């Protein structure tokens, strides 16, 4: 069992375990915190895949942006220090949800196991960050999605300011 396999098992366990805890916790704030732990696990998996830049971006965007937003929404809207009493949040159709979840999982597993995913990927290039940078602005590379993404962000910003403006 090489070190890489051990680390993969550890990070995978962190990711999956935290994800399981996200959906089973009653306290919404705890669920958000376990989601953040799951993001850290995914960042660790990226490092194992020799994509450190992606791991840092994962921390930056997901933990430092999206998770913060989720926690803002939780703190500003709910009284979650007292978890819900009298079963108000209990799911009555849990059997239907379980059926759909098992069906989805079965279908995904069948597809994943029966598909020919091709050969193993080649070795990671040496200056992967420099190559990523040049590809993002290369006219024959990814410059169009890059610019469209920035236009999308601009639209989002303008929309947010318009919605939140004082009349």
């Amino acid at each position, binding site marked *: 069992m090489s070190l890489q396999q051990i680390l993969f098992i550890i990070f995978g366990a962190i990711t999956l375990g935290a994800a399981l805890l996200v959906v089973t916790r009653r306290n919404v704030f*705890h669920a958000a*915190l376990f989601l953040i732990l799951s993001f850290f696990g995914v960042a660790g998996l990226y490092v194992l895949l020799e994509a*450190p*830049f992606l791991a840092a971006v994962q921390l*930056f965007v997901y933990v430092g942006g999206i998770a*913060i937003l989720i926690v*803002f929404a939780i*703190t500003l809207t709910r009284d979650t220090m007292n978890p819900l009493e009298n079963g108000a949040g209990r799911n009555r159709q849990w059997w239907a949800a379980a059926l759909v979840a098992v069906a989805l999982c079965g279908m995904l597993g069948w597809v994943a196991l029966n598909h020919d995913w091709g050969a193993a990927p080649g070795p990671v290039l040496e200056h992967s*960050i420099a190559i990523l940078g040049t590809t993002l602005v290369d006219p024959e590379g990814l410059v169009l999605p890059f610019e469209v993404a920035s236009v999308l962000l601009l639209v989002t910003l303008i929309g947010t300011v318009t919605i939140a403006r004082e009349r």
Partner: protein
Amino acid sequence: MEFLKDLITNIGLWFHELLASTSLPEVWVRVITLVVGASVLALVPLVAVIFLIWFERKIAARIASRLGPNNSGAYGGPWGILQVFADAIKMFVKEDVIPTAADRWVFNIAPMLVLALAVLIWAVIPLGKGLIGSDLNIGVFYILSLGSASMITMLMAGWGSNNKYATLGALRSIVTLASYEIPQVLSVLVVVMVAGSFSMQDIIEAQDVAFLFTLPLTALLYLASSLSELERRPFDLVEANSGIVAGCCIEYSGMKSGMFYLAESLNQLAVTATFSTLFLGGWRGPWVDQAPALSTLWLMLKILLLTLIIQFFRYTLPRLRVDQILRLNWKFLTPLALVNICVVALVGQAVPTSAGPWVRAGAFLGANILLALAMLKVSSQQWQTAAG
């Protein structure tokens, strides 16, 4: 003498040889060396923080024209250096109060996380020539993303205290931190653009002329936004000691509040080290090639200088309100950072690399000075219309 010239690397090599000469298998030797090295690396900033706290007290006293720890009585030690140890012991023995309705897990884990994230940054700070925990090829970006990830610890502290004011303080802190990340990242991006790499050692190698002299505006941008990230005066409204007590960390007492304080000092040390690396040339200095052990000394001197400057800001400037802080960021620092990037990128392309490093440095400096003058003109017009 030869041993002394590259002191710390030689100590590491001696330790490795010592372990290898015993009968342990190769893998264990490596693992033990790495673990010991990592522990020493984690201890270095903690020890440096002790000195830093004493230094801060002395400067505060000098600026306020009073005696600092200089005169802590007979038990203060020379120059009052034992004052810091007295503070540390005080924090250890204080009673650990946890509010009854607080969320115990979240409340207790928050200070540990803050300290862990603060120490993690030190893995990529180059402490000398060839002395770095791990020369990641995403060096600077790692520091930025850890700073961004540490925002969640404030939310945990504020929310876990089950205290409305702590939560509000935490929310305000997060708003300030998230806003000031933008000019911080943009100014670091300029340095990365000019140096051509994210890696800290590469940025140091690329500074034949320290970037402070070629990109002064960028350095000021980074200093201003990092001061806000650290929540130092003039941006420290969330922990205004005489007003809101401690923002998100009101309910913490004893060692836990000591951990927050320690993490803040560690972050300040990391920011000064990063500024030295990015703009002052890190461990570069005279005679570094002959005696690499001197490089650590140069880095320490630069860090001390920067700490002095930050303390000057802390004890002479008044505090800004939160809306003034946000206005400063969104209406001044962010547009300036964006224009700075465009200008530096244009100048970097316009002046070819074949013209030599001095010409390029001069071109960047000229562009920065022009930009600074333009900014002053624009902002003075704005102040006039706002005041008049």
